[in-house]
């Protein structure tokens, strides 16, 4: 499964004298199993790109094709369903539902797919154990640390078995230890399960782990390089 972006543009204030080109005629291809970091300064268009890749935002022009299917052309309902089944999201501020426990947060997205309660419970438990939260299944987000919450977010993103995971500055609110642990988890999941991770980040700790780094500036790709893998961490429980 491949994401292929063709001549993708996103322009804000289009009808004014000062249009802002958040993404400017971008061509890009990301294959299944990649561990990609999209880096660039604030306002360079990283989040806009991720939103369009995830079908959250619509481009001004261009195509976002996943296996030759242009997700931009889908109706909102179909786009949500497509997103639900194929794309996982990790947000900077974790964005967990505060009234649900860690386990329920992960189960929730699976239930949206129509899995049975038992299936949801089993997979959610497995994932949370995998990300090192075996002892925190029944805690609500407020009772978890930032790092733990972000691990729940990772488990939630992976619960529906997505082809791609979009992570928007996932380590921005984490300390060094939590960041390292989280990256270990994601890297291991990438290697073991072949899940594609696409990060928007300017965190050198993330960039250091990426297999591919796309540099973004003023809505344009200024560099795109494959990086030899130096380190694969172990998941710390």
């Amino acid at each position: 499964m491949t994401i292929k972006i063709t001549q993708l543009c996103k322009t804000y204030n289009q009808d004014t004298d000062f249009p802002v080109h958040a993404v400017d005629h971008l061509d890009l291809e990301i294959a299944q199993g990649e561990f990609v970091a999209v880096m660039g300064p604030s306002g360079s268009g990283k989040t806009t790109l991720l939103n369009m890749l995830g079908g959250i935002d619509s481009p001004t022009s261009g195509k976002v094709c996943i296996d030759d299917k242009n997700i931009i052309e889908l109706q909102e309902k179909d786009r949500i369903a497509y997103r639900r089944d194929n794309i996982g999201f990790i947000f900077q501020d974790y964005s967990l539902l505060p009234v649900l426990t860690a386990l329920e947060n992960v189960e929730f997205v699976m239930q949206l797919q129509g899995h049975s309660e038992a299936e949801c419970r089993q997979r959610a438990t497995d994932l949370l154990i995998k990300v090192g939260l075996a002892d925190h299944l029944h805690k609500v987000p407020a009772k978890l640390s930032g790092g733990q919450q972000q691990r729940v977010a990772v488990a939630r993103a992976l619960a529906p078995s997505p082809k791609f995971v979009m992570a928007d500055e996932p380590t921005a609110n984490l300390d060094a230890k939590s960041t390292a642990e989280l990256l270990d988890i994601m890297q291991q999941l990438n290697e073991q399960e072949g899940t594609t991770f696409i990060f928007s980040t300017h965190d050198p700790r993330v960039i250091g782990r990426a297999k591919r780094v796309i540099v973004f500036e003023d809505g344009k790709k200024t560099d795109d390089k494959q990086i030899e893998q130096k380190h694969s961490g172990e998941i710390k429980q």
Partner: protein
Amino acid sequence: MLVTLAWRNLWRQKRRTILTASALALALLLSLLMRCVQEGSYTANIENAARLSTGLIQLQHPEFAESQSIDDLLPGDDKFIEFANHHHNLQYVMPRIESFALAAAGDKSKGVMVLGVDPDKEAQYSGLSDKLISGSYLQADDQQVLIAEGLADHLGLKLGEQVILYGQGYRGQTAAGLYTIKGILHFPMPQLNNQLIYLPLQLAQELYSTDSLVTAWVLHSEELSLLEETVNDLKAFYGEKVNVRDWQDLSPDMAQQILIDRASGLFLMYLLYGIVGFALFATLLMMVLERQREFAVMLATGLLRIKLLKLIAIESTFIGLLGICLGLLLSFPILTWLFFNPIQLTGDTAQLMLEMGYDPIIPVLLDPWLFLHQVVVVLGLLALCLIYPMWRLYRMDLVSALKGGAHAA
């Protein structure tokens, strides 16, 4: 999961939820109290007025309502009234002759209303015998009459003296008779006290030469709520040969007065709900606006927008139901207590009511429909208050909402 999520979301802002539900509960309590007292008073007034004069239902000749003529009569026999006599809703069935005559004594005369009644049934139904201030009550075979106090004074008549009644009888015959006064009645309402003369039914039929015919059959249902059903049954049975009139038709002034009073009561009730509605609206709107980022994440992770709307609808319904349950829990014991122990009026007001034949109390009506009406009003208010927050949510822009929601809709 949506229901669980909605229920837990409700308690994220405990104080706000409790305050909103309490405001709804208080509005429901006050409205219900007001409506139950109002409807209780109407019921008591209608019952009392019916017993004092028209009855709850009358069977009349189809022309009688318009003509008020002694020529438009109904049969007074058992066969005719058998259906009504056996109707399970009817408590009283009484024949009446109701006409006009000129009453004269000495050199004085006055137009009066003559009522021919079954003395025993009338005493039971309207408490006519209790209005006697001198003399004795009628017997069915009496050749004497009862006269209202004001009329007796006007004609200068005393107990045992005679009054002449003169009028038009059935089919143009002359109705004339000289009757001894057996008793004097007192009615608190001047219009009754100044013009009523009661005769035993048979004597009235002789006076007006109606043979066994009567001007009306007066009927009374066990409960006011059974009235409509009873009237429909009677209409279906008697068809177009008989005019079945309910109290509203017989006392249009009172019906209109109640209608206006009820409308003003309902207006006050809706005003109260309107004020509470603003609080509810603010809560629901806040519930949506402050969580736009959260909703955007839910949409991003695959929740359909329709399910998101459903979530908000469930949360709002929970608030509404909490308010309703709390309101009913508060109001039911209070109203039940007031139903069995109505507030007693004292002093001049109580005296006046007693004289008019009313109990000096503030009656309360316990009717499930009144409770149901409040529930429907609260749910309707909820639905109304939900329109705008739902619209905002429906129109919420996912990208803006993910950025924080300031410009999400």
